[in-house]
C-alpha cells in the first residue's frame, strides 16, 4: 500500500490562498488506510481550514468536500465534473498518483497535493506505518529471506551488514533494527545461510528508465482479432 502523510495546515493554507472555492477531495483506498486522506480526514481538514479562516478573520474561502473510491483511475473521477462546477481548485488528499490522474482528467482546474506521498509500506499497528519496498523494479527478496535491504537498511547496501551494525541495531539510528542482522537471522532459520556467503554486485538505480511502463498485453494487428 502507498503511505502518505498529510501536509501541515500552514502549507495547505499557503497553497490554497489564491483560490477562494476549494474542493477537498479524498481517496477511498490507500489514503484511507494510511489515515491521510479518507473521508474522515477530508472532513477533519475541512473543519480545521474553516476554523483557521474564522480565527484569522480574513477568510475568503468556501470549502466543499467529496471522496472518491480511488483517485488513480479515471473512471472513478467521472463524478467530479459536477462537483467542480463552482470550484477554483481541487485540494487532493490522494497520493501523488491521484493528483496527477486528476490533473490529467480535468485539464482546466488546478490540483494541489494535500499530502506528501511517502513510501510503500505496511501498518505496524493502528496509527503506525513502516516503509517496506522501494519499487526498485528488480526484486531480490528471494536472496534476502524476504527482507528488503534497500528499504530497511539505512544505507541500502546489498552485501551487509556494514561495520556500523551494533547489537542488531543500525549505527545511524539506535532504534532501528539492522536489516542485515534481520536477514541473517531469517536465513539461519530457513537454513539458507549460504545465501549470505555470496557477493551481490551493485545495482545502478540511476539506470532505471523513467517513466516506467508495464505492458501486460500484447499488440494484436488490426483485423486479426475479428477472425
Amino acid at each position, binding site marked *: 500500500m502507498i503511505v502518505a502523510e498529510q501536509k501541515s495546515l500552514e502549507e495547505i493554507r499557503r497553497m490554497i490562498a489564491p483560490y477562494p472555492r476549494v474542493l477537498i477531495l479524498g481517496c477511498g483506498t490507500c489514503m484511507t*488506510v494510511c489515515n491521510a486522506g479518507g473521508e474522515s480526514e477530508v472532513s477533519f481538514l475541512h473543519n480545521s481550514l474553516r476554523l483557521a479562516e474564522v480565527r484569522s478573520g480574513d477568510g475568503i474561502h468556501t470549502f466543499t468536500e467529496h471522496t472518491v473510491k480511488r483517485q488513480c483511475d479515471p473512471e472513478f473521477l467521472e463524478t467530479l465534473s459536477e462537483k467542480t462546477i463552482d470550484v477554483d481548485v481541487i485540494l487532493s488528499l490522494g497520493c501523488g498518483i491521484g493528483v496527477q490522474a486528476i490533473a490529467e482528467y480535468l485539464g482546466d482546474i488546478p490540483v494541489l497535493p494535500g499530502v506528501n506521498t511517502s513510501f510503500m509500506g505496511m501498518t505496524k499497528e493502528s496509527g503506525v506505518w513502516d516503509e517496506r519496498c522501494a519499487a526498485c523494479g528488480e526484486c531480490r527478496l528471494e536472496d534476502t529471506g524476504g527482507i528488503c535491504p534497500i528499504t530497511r537498511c539505512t544505507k541500502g547496501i546489498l552485501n551487509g551488514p556494514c561495520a556500523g551494525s551494533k547489537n542488531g541495531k543500525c549505527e545511524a539510528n539506535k532504534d532501528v533494527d539492522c536489516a542485515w542482522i534481520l536477514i541473517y537471522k531469517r536465513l539461519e532459520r530457513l537454513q539458507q545461510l549460504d545465501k549470505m556467503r555470496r557477493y551481490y554486485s551493485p545495482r545502478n538505480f540511476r539506470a532505471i528508465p523513467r517513466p516506467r511502463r508495464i505492458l501486460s498485453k500484447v499488440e494484436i494487428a488490426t483485423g486479426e482479432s475479428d477472425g
Partner: protein
Amino acid sequence: MNLTNTSHPGIHQEDASDHSLIPPCQNACPLHMDIREYVSLVSQGRIMEALQVIRMGNPFPSICAYVCTHPCEESCRRAQVDKPIAIRSLKRFAVEFGGDRMIRTEAETKYSDKVAIVGSGPAGLACAYYVKKIGYPVTILEAHSDLGGMLRVGIPQYRLPREVLDTEIQRLTHMGVEIRTNTRVVSLDLLFELGYKAIFITIGAHQSLRLGIEGEESPGVIDGATFLREVNLGIKPSLGRRVMVAGGGNVAIDAARTAVRLGVKHVSIFYRRTRSEMPADPQELEQALEEGVKIKYLSTPVRIDRENDRLKMTCVRMELGEPDESGRRRPVPIKGSEFTKEFDSLIVAIGQAPQTPSDFGVRIGRGSTIQVDPSTLTTNRTGVFAGGDAVTGPATVTEALAAGRLAASRIDDYLQHRYPLPVKETNEKLSGELLPKTIEMIRKIERSEPLSLVGETRVKDFETVEQVYGWEAAINEARRCLRCGVGVEILFQDKCATCLTCLRVCPYHVPRLDNTGNINIPADQCQACGICVAECPAKAIVLRKPFDRRQVSEELTHTIKLATESKNKPPIIGFCCQYGLFGTGTLSRLWRGAKAGVTIVPVLCVAKVEANHLLSAFETGAEGVFIAGCGEQCARENTTYWVKQRVEKVRKVLRSIGIEPERLQVFTLGTAVADPTEELDRFIEQISALRLSSVIKEEAIS
C-alpha cells in the same frame, strides 16, 4: 456560520432508520417492554423519562415493580459476564423516584359499544385500562368485594403493599371505568342482554388442586389459595404451633411465609422433588429460609389421621426417577420409607386450576382452561374473549397484563369490524452468546441489590420486605447494562477500505475479518462504545440507532444555536458525559450550568466525541473547550485513551493556527486529581487569564 455543516459534513445524519436489535431482556418480557431504554435513562439519572418509557409498555408498572417474576433477568446477557441487571429493582426505583403516584390518566369515551370484563385480576384490569383508553365504555364485574384478583387475595402484602394496588384502581375509576364488585357472573347471556357487545373472561385459576390422599377432608387441612385469601381479606385462621405446607411453588412459599407472620413457630415445607426442580423463585425461597421456614425435600404426605385435635401425617420419602412430560424428573416413593410427624395444620399448595361456570358456554380444554385462538383470544362464542390464568393455567402477572392488552386491541378490532392486523416486529431479535474473548474484556461490576428488611424484623408484620434503591446505587446498577443490540454496524460496506482500524481499536475484539476478506461487526458482541465509529477513516461505521448517531452533533448544534441567538458567546464549551456520576451525582454541577460562562454539551460517553466536534466548538468562538468523562469509572474500556488521542490531534491544529493548545482540556474521574471540579475551576481561571492577555495584546497593537 453554516450550521448544517458544523460538525459532520458527511453521511451520518442521512440514514434515519433504526437498525437496533431487540435485546433478549425485552424479548423475554411478556409485555415486551423497552428495558434497555429505561435502564439507560436511569443510568443517566433521567428518572422521569425512564418512567415514561416504562408506562408506555406497562399499564401498571408500580405493581410489576413489586411482584414481576422478571423473566427479563433470566435472559439478561450480563449473566454471561457476572450477574444479570437488577431490572425489576430499577423499575421500582423509577416508579418511586419518577413520581408514578402523581400521574393521572385520562380517557375519553368515543364509542357507544359497551364492553364487560368478568374478573378483576391483572388481565381484567389491564384490558379495562386499554379498552377505556381506546374509547369504549367498560364495566368490570368482580365476584369479590375488592378488585385485583390474585393481586388482592393471593399475593401477600409484604410483597405487594395494597396502597400500590389501590392507586392503580383509583386511576381506573378516574378514567371512568365502571366497577361492580360482589358480582359473580354466572351466565354471559345476561350480559349480552344488558347490552354489552363484547365480553372478556378473566376469572383466573382459583380452584386449588388436591393431594388426593386419605384424610384430606379433616379439619386443620386448608388449601393454599383459600388460606392466603382469608389472610388477605383480614381473617386470621388459627393454625396452631406446627404447620406443614405441601408444595414447591411460589404459592407454597407465600403460604409458609404468611404463616410465619401469623406467629406460627414451626413452619415446614414438604416438597417431593429437590431444590433444583423447585419452581419457586430462588430469592423468595432464600428469604423464606431467612425467616426460619424449614424445607424438607423429597418427602410428601400420603395419609392424614386426625388425633387429639392434631394431624398425624404419614409421609414417604421419594427418589427421582425418569423425567416426566414437564422435563423434570418424576419423584418415585421409596418402599418402606414411611415416617410420621405431627402437625397442627396442613396447607396444601400444589397448584390451582380455573373453574369456569358451565353456563358460560365456552369450550374448555386441558387442565380446565378456556380454549381460545392464541392470536385473537376469541373463544368459541362470538364476542366472547378470554385471557389470563383462566386460559393459561396459573401463570404470572405480566402474562396476564399482556393478555389484557392484547384482548383490548382484539376487542377493538371486533367492534370495529376490522380484520385483526398481525403485530409486526420490524427489528430483528438479537441472538447469540457473548464470546469468551468479549467477556474477558468486559469490566466485571458487582450487581447491587436494594436493601431488604432483616429477617427477624420483617416476620413481625406484613411490612414490605424489599426496599427501594438509593439514587447512586440505582445509577451504578443501571450502568452495568451492556446495551445489547444498539451497537454499531458497517452501514456503508462499499466505503469500507478494509483498513482494519476497527478491528485494531476495538477494546472487545468485536470486528472480524471473514474469509472472503470483508470486515464484519457482529451485533451480538458489540458493546456500543462507539470508539470505532470515530476512528474509522472511511466513516463507514455508524451506531444502529438514529438517535445515538446524531446525539453529539445535535446537542452541539443546539448549543451553538442558543449561543448565536443570545449573542452571548459561551466562553467555554464542555462535552460532558451523561452517565453515572457526571450526569447526576456529585459532579452534576459541572453540567447543570452552575458555572458562569460554561455551556455543556451532554454526551453519552465521551468516546463518541469526535475530533471534528472539538473543532466545531472552537469555531463557535469558544475560548476554551473541555471534555469531562468518567475515566477509570467508565463502564467501557479505553474511552479516555481515545479521547486523549483526539485531543492531541486537535491541539496540533490549534497550535498551527495560533490558538493556545491549553485551551483544550480533558477532565476525568478517578485520575490522580480527585476532584475534577477543582481542575475545572483552574481551567476557567486560566482561560480568563488568556482572554485578558489577548485583550491587552490587541490594545497594545491598536
